[in-house]
């Protein structure tokens, strides 16, 4: 066994446990990026270089989608707490 597969396996295990145990959005997304790094290293150690390039291009797209969703969701939850008692009466 070489060093790159061992390190990638360690990164996969730590990232998978860390995504579940952390409770903040940003911490979860950082640990998810850590898990993706392990996945790309493990794909590369099988000599599938084209799949590795495709995967490393698509990784920031998924991260940006999750970040925009988390930002919009936090903003929505803040603003709805304030008006939720009177707005539905006016809407009807």
């Amino acid at each position, binding site marked *: *066994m070489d060093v790159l*597969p061992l390190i990638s*396996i360690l990164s*996969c*295990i730590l990232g*998978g*446990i860390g*995504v*579940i*145990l952390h*409770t903040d*959005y940003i911490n*979860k*997304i950082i640990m*998810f990026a850590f*898990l*993706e790094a392990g*996945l790309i290293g*493990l*794909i590369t*150690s*099988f000599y*599938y270089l*084209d*799949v590795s390039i*495709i*995967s490393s291009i*698509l990784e920031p*797209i*998924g991260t940006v*989608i*999750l970040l*925009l*969703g*988390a930002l*919009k*969701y936090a903003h*929505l*939850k803040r603003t*709805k707490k304030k008006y*939720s008692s009177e707005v*539905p009466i006016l809407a009807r």
Partner: protein
Amino acid sequence: MNTMNLVVLTTYIGYFLLIIGVIGAIFGPMTNDPLKRLLNIEVPSMGVALIFLAYNETLALMTYIAVNSVLMLVFVRAIIKNEELEA
């Protein structure tokens, strides 16, 4: 002595991530928030990708990684719409 080679170890890691992710998505900490549950769902998805890798399914792996990011967009959009429309 050569039984624990790379392919067998990758299969075990894939099944480990699958089981841990499914248990964490059901009983994990603070999963009444739907976005946190979606982030826990990503862990078994990566486990499925590792199992594809261990059985040498290159085309399936590439397609799965590409479709996964589109699927993430659909789920995030659905969660935000649900939060907006709910009174």
